[in-house]
Each structure stands twice: as C-alpha cells, then as structure tokens.
C-alpha cells in the first residue's frame, strides 16, 4: 500500500512537473540563480583566502647571528626553536651563503662591494629564517628568542621591521574574513527567501487543485507527497544546471583572477573538484530541505478543506 502510494506520488510529481513545465522551469531558474550567487561567494572566499595565505607565506623572521657564533651552536638553537608548536619551518643560512646573498643583493653598489673587499674575512654570521604557522604566533617566537642566554649570540632580529606589516595583514585578513562571512550570510538568507517564496507561489497556483483533491477524498499526505517530490526534482535540476553553468564560468574567470593577483597560485576549479561532494551535496540537501519546508508551510493552509 505504501509502495503503491509512493509510486503514485512520484508519477504525479513527474506529471505535474511536465504539465506545468513553465512554472517548473521558472522555479529551477530561481534555484539556479540562488545557487550561482552562493557559489560565487565561495569563489570570492577561495580567492581572498589564497591571496591572504600567499601574503602570509612571504612573512618570516630572520635571526642574524654574530660571525663568531659556531654553526653547532646555531644548530642547537634551531633544534630548540623547532620544538615550539608555533613554528612552521626554520631554514639555516650559513655565513658564506649570507655573504653571497648580501653581495648579490648589492651588486650594483660599488661602495659596499669595495668595503667587502677591504675586509679580511667574512663579516657575516649564520642566519635562521623562521616562519610561524600563523601571523599571531610571531610574538611568541620572538619571546623565545629574547632568552638572555641568546643575548650574546644574536646580532639582530628583523622582526620589528615586519611587525607593522604583519599587524596590518592580520587586520586585513580578519576584516576580509568577516566581510565575506557577512556578505555570504546575507546572500544565503536572500537565496533562502527567494526559493521559499518561489515554492510558495508555485503551490499557490495549485490551491484550487489541492481543494479539489481534498473534496474527492484524498488524504493530506496523498496530496503533499507529489508536491514534495516535485520540489525535490526542481532542487535537483537546479543543482545540476548550476554545476553545468558554473564550471565554464570559473574556467573563463580563472585566468583574469590569476593575472590580477600576479604570482599567487589560484586553482578555483581544483578547489571545486576537490570539494565537489561537500559543496554541491550540501547545497542540494539545503535546497531540498528549504523546498520541503516551504512547500509544507505553503500547503498547510490549503489543506484545511
């Protein structure tokens, strides 16, 4: 009996979908637009996150040791620093490498080149280039470097130069996250309301049919089920149409975004491919849920016949 009713509900849903094809297409189109705007926000989110993390990756702290500090001592400090949970990576640059880098950086400056020649030995010491996992971790790392036992070994730390930049980037990153979140929230609410109203209007156009069904002895669930299946079908097709349109749109957009943020590696399609099930699966579930709730609410008042 249940299977018969289910079978009929699906059949009626398909019939109604096809026989009210323009209404169905309009509903699918609204779902498509809503999902497109939600996915566009995901794209914006991916771009802003990639841009922020690219900038973050370029931040580091260079710890310059005095020339007389032995490599073994620096290696010991490196090992101790690596035990800190905030550390992402530490690269050791030897005194020779530091000198080569310095020379290369000031290749055109004859005064510096002459001064270096006049000096008998290498005036540079080894350097540790420290990267933290998060921007907020740098003060903690610097605190560890302020250990008095290191005082005689360290020539200079360049973090003070970066402190302002790091603080600013941190501020921008946090603000960008909040703005994207707020816009996403507003868009999602608008999308929900639009879908909610579209389904309500679709049900409204069926109100006479619902009343007739009641008058010839149909039970509430016998009437509700086809509408629910029809709204699931619209949600499913809305998602499929979104996927079909979204991929070419992103493909077209990606080169422009990549050239705008020169040097930053954006792979929006890769992101969507990697998270396909999560993104579109959750969107489909959300759409179906909204459709079921809105059709349920909309039908409620027409079923009191």
């Amino acid at each position, binding site marked *: 009996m249940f299977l018969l009713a289910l079978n009929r509900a699906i059949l009626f849903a398909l019939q109604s979908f096809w026989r009210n094809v323009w209404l169905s297409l309009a509903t699918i189109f609204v779902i498509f637009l809503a999902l497109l705007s939600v996915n566009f926000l995901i794209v914006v989110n991916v771009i802003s996150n990639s841009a922020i993390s690219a900038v973050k990756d370029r931040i580091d702290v260079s710890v310059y040791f005095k020339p007389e500090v032995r490599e073994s001592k620096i290696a010991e400090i490196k090992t101790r620093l690596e035990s800190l949970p905030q550390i992402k990576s530490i690269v050791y640059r030897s005194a020779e490498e530091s000198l080569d880098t310095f020379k290369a950086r000031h290749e055109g400056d004859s005064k510096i080149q002459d001064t270096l020649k006049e000096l008998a030995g290498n005036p540079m010491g080894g350097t540790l280039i420290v990267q933290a996992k998060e921007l907020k971790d740098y003060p903690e790392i610097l605190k560890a470097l302020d250990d008095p036992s290191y005082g005689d070994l360290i020539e200079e730390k360049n973090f003070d130069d970066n402190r302002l930049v790091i603080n600013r980037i941190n501020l921008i990153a946090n603000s960008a996250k909040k703005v994207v979140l707020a816009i996403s929230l507003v868009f999602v609410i608008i999308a929900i309301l639009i879908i909610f109203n579209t389904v309500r209007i679709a049900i409204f156009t069926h109100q006479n049919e619902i009343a007739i069904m009641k008058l010839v*002895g*149909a039970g509430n669930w016998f009437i509700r089920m086809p509408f629910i299946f029809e709204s699931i079908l619209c949600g499913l097709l809305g998602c499929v149409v979104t996927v079909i349109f979204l991929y070419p749109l992103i493909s077209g957009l990606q080169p422009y975004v990549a050239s705008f943020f020169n040097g930053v590696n954006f792979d929006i399609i890769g992101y969507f491919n990697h998270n396909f099930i999560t993104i579109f699966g959750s969107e489909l579930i959300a759409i179906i849920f909204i459709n079921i709730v809105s059709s349920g609410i909309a039908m409620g008042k027409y079923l009191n016949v």
Partner: protein
Amino acid sequence: MIHLVDVSKKFSDGAEALKNADLHIEPGEFVSIVGQSGSGKTTIVRLLISEIFPDKGKIVVGGWDITHIKKHHIPLLRRQIGVVFQDFKLLPKKTVFENVAFALQVAGAIRNRIETIVPQVLSIVDLSNKIDRYPQELSGGERQRVAIARALIHRPKVLLADEPTGNLDALNTKDIIDLLLKINEFGTTVVMVTHNKDTVNSLKRRVITLEDGLIVQDQKVGKYII
C-alpha cells in the same frame, strides 16, 4: 440514509445559515433542495461532506455519526459520498480518465482495477470517446458528466449534487438530470440542490424548501414554489 437532527450553523460573520434543521432522507430517494441564494442549501451539502461543522445538532450519513468526525476520517467519508458541484471541480492538468481515476487512486485502488472500472463508468456517462481530453477541451455538459463519473466511481450510496445544472444550457441540463435519474434508479440516493424551477417541477419528486436557514416546506411530490 441522511439524518439532520436540530442542526444549526452560524458563520463567523454572524450570518445564520441553518436554523434547527430537521431532515430525514431515506435510501433510494431523489430529493431536491430549493431556496433562494443564502437560504442555506449549499450549507447542507458542505455539512454532509464535513467541509464545515454544525454549531448544534447531529448529522448522520449512512449510519455514521459525522457530527464530530475526526479530521483523518474525513477523506474516508468523502470516498463514500459522491459529490457534484456547479463549477465541476475537475483537476485542470489531468485528462478525463485521470480525473475519474484519481478518486480511486486516493483510496489506494490498484492499477488493474482502475483500468477496468474507469472506462465502464465513463461509458455510463457517454464519454468513452473523450478519455484523453483535458477538462478545458470539453463542453460544460461534458465536464459535468466527468464530475458525475468521478462521483460514481466508488459506487456511493449517496450522491450530492450542488447546483449541477447551474452552468449548463437547457439541453445539457436535461441530459444531466436524466443521468441523475438513471443513477437514482440503480438505488443511489440523490440529493440535488438547485435553483432550476422547471427541472424541479418536471421531476415530480420530493422537494425541500429552505428560507433564511429554515426548512419551510417538505413535500413528497413537490413543486418549486418560491
């Protein structure tokens, strides 16, 4: 078959649609309920299908006391009473066959049974050649015949017809009345609410006259007297 005992109904706007109505209809009767607009004729039909509920009194249909019927029992009641409306109330996006079959589908009838019974009933109302048409492709008389076929599909003991000829011309009116008489001959109790004086007078059957919610006359072989 149908018993209304001291039934009153007042609507939210204060209008008293039915006042202390006592009405008893026996099985197999053909009864016309007549009266001016707002006299309470349609209220009786709506009470009998539990579309509305009485403020006072008792309603029994086919031995079933429906005065305080539970909501989930209403569909069962409606499957036992055939109803025909003035505006046909056909599902516009379903064909003639599907409209009639729908009344069986709601009751959980299997496909084979539907495919056997629906053509039989459509042949009784002479619509065998129009089973794939949509309601908007039919004339008013044909639409009403579809509605009658749908009402008959459960072989109901009672057929309620609320102004069944209200939207029809004289020729179609005669066809529909003849059909209702034929249905009555097979033993179905027919209760017809109507405005049509000529029809009521030609029937020479029981006539109940309503005025301002009161039953003012009940004649065994009556005439339209208002």
